[in-house]
């Protein structure tokens, strides 16, 4: 198992390398740079071109692009994602402080999705064709079609406008005060998780229908087992397994949802940072966040694969 994990981690290296290289060169195309932004006066005019040029020289922006690339990649090997001159902070520090919220939002979205979809999907399959099935299917098509940020707006509207709810002030670490943190994250993560729940419900419903037609379910019935045991012990585990794969396919999308919803709910995560960074052309920070998000998704996929090894006896390492 340990060898397998190590090998999988090694396999991440080329992917991270391609990702980092692509985003680095993409960001070189961006018109304007941090040196200009640093030398703006209050009304948005450039202080002086000499000063800009001086700043460029100081930041190493005048070096040949390969040198800049080499420097950034070299630093990344040390876990250093570069320096944001606009914020005067190390990108790694910024991200370390902000990654938790973004990850937690996406993670909670998966949790809500799983909690919703398993019972709904199974019930829909068992009651196929009934009004309950119709209702659940309507929910799942609808849930897929509603943009998560709009759902977030609606939730905010209802909570703040009609129920006079105010979000708790965010200032603690998750571990210090999980309850406060949860209160803050619960609604945005629900808004993100709805789409996952909708897709997972459909998936579970259709796999459950398929599984119910499988030979081994017939075998279980032929043994004279009780209906509940047939459904819960023989059919359901096989129908639920694919949700793991789904969570790894959709995790990137859920992180994307978190990025948007952070901006709506004013949560200090990577989403807020990247929108700010784009607004100020802080390309180093954009690079850092993009790479971090990619690595998060790749690690999540690894975790899911490992989980499969644990829950599905058919999957062996190698």
């Amino acid at each position, binding site marked *: 198992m340990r060898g397998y994990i190590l090998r999988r981690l090694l396999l991440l290296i080329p992917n991270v390398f391609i990702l980092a290289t692509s985003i680095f060169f993409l960001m070189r195309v961006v018109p304007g740079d941090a040196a200009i932004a640093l030398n703006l006066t209050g009304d948005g005019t450039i202080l002086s071109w000499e000063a800009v040029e001086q700043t460029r020289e100081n930041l190493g922006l005048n070096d040949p692009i390969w040198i800049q690339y080499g420097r950034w990649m070299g630093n990344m090997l040390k876990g250093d994602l570069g320096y944001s001159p606009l914020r005067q902070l190390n990108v790694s520090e910024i991200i370390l402080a902000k990654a938790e919220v973004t990850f937690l939002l996406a993670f909670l979205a998966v949790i809500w999705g799983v909690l919703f979809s398993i019972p709904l999907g199974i019930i829909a399959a068992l009651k196929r064709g009934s009004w309950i099935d119709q209702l659940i299917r309507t929910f799942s098509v609808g849930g897929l079609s509603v943009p998560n940020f709009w759902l977030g707006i609606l939730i905010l509207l209802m909570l703040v406008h009609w129920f006079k709810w105010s979000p708790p002030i965010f200032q603690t670490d998750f571990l210090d005060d999980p309850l406060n943190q949860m209160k803050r994250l619960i609604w945005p993560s629900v808004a993100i998780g709805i789409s996952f729940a909708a897709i997972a419900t459909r998936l579970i419903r259709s796999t459950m229908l398929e599984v119910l*037609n*499988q*030979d*081994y*379910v*017939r*075998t*279980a*019935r*032929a*043994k*004279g*087992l*009780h*209906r509940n*045991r047939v459904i819960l*012990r*023989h059919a359901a*585990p*096989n129908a639920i*397994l694919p949700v793991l794969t789904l969570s790894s396919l959709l995790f990137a999308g859920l992180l994307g949802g978190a990025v948007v919803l952070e901006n709506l709910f004013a949560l200090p995560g990577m989403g807020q940072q990247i929108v700010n960074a784009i607004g100020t052309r802080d390309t180093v920070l954009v690079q850092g966040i993009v790479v971090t998000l990619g690595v998060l998704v790749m690690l999540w996929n690894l975790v899911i694969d490992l989980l499969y090894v644990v*829950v*599905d*006896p*058919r999957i062996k390492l190698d």
Partner: protein
Amino acid sequence: MPLLEVKNLKTHFFSDDAITKAVDGVSYNVEAGETVALVGESGCGKSVSSLSVMQLIPQPPGKIVDGEIIFGGQNLLELDREAMRRKRGREIAMIFQEPMTSLNPVISIETQLTEAMTLQLGITPKEAHTRAVELLDRVGIPEPDVRIKQYPHVFSGGMRQRVMVAMALSCEPKLIIADEPTTALDVTIQAQILDLMQDLAKERDMALLIITHNLGVVARYADRINIMYAGRIIERGTCKDIFADPRHPYTLGLLESIPRLDQPKGSKLIPIQGQPPNLSDLPPGCSFQPRCRFAQDKCSVEYPDITDLRNNHSSACWEVNNFKAIVESGVSK
């Protein structure tokens, strides 16, 4: 009194556009301890008729619309769901065609083998475990105490079918229904499994109902045969009678159209022309009539009743009695 008596069973499948009469008035019986075969091509309703006995057809779209299934003096169709559940596995067990998909991939062999015993026989898990190991040993699985802990995917097709046989035996049923039990297996493994099933049935005085399309298997293992075509039984009799003296053109056609190991190259096969009918759109009269070499006007008007000849040999053909003469005179369409 026979152990199992199926009387005029009709199982139909309903869809928006059509009614598929998968089983349409089938009667047969199985005496205690004997081996009976239900023979036919794919789609003739033989599997549905056996699943109907167990009441395992998917409902809907399937429905048993008529008939009686009398097992040990009781009409199974009149039992409530709970009572029927208690019969399954305990008194009638079943073995299916696809050993690769008939076992649950995420549950250990041990659980799958013992769960019925603890439930149906009311024994403790520990006793069930001991019995399961004995059973695996009996069906020829090496190192049963080790392999019982494993999951189905590490077993080969033949080994899984042995596990299925062990599972079917576990509650000592009076009847085992085997639906194409060896079709998915290799020839040398087929022989192993069928011999094993036959030995075990003799040893424990169980009746065996084999559903198959393979006439060779029937000739080797069955005492009595029922031949099905398009949802009905068209001929039945003892194994020897059917092979030596077929009285239905379909039976004759089957025997003439299969290549035999003991016949040299060049021996002529006489195929049955056309193809099996669509069960939701049967031809008028006798279902076999459009493909029958000897069909007459009468055949496309009315379905012939199944008629007894002698020694429980019966056939559903208008010409049962002078069948031989017709075949010899070579009348053809």
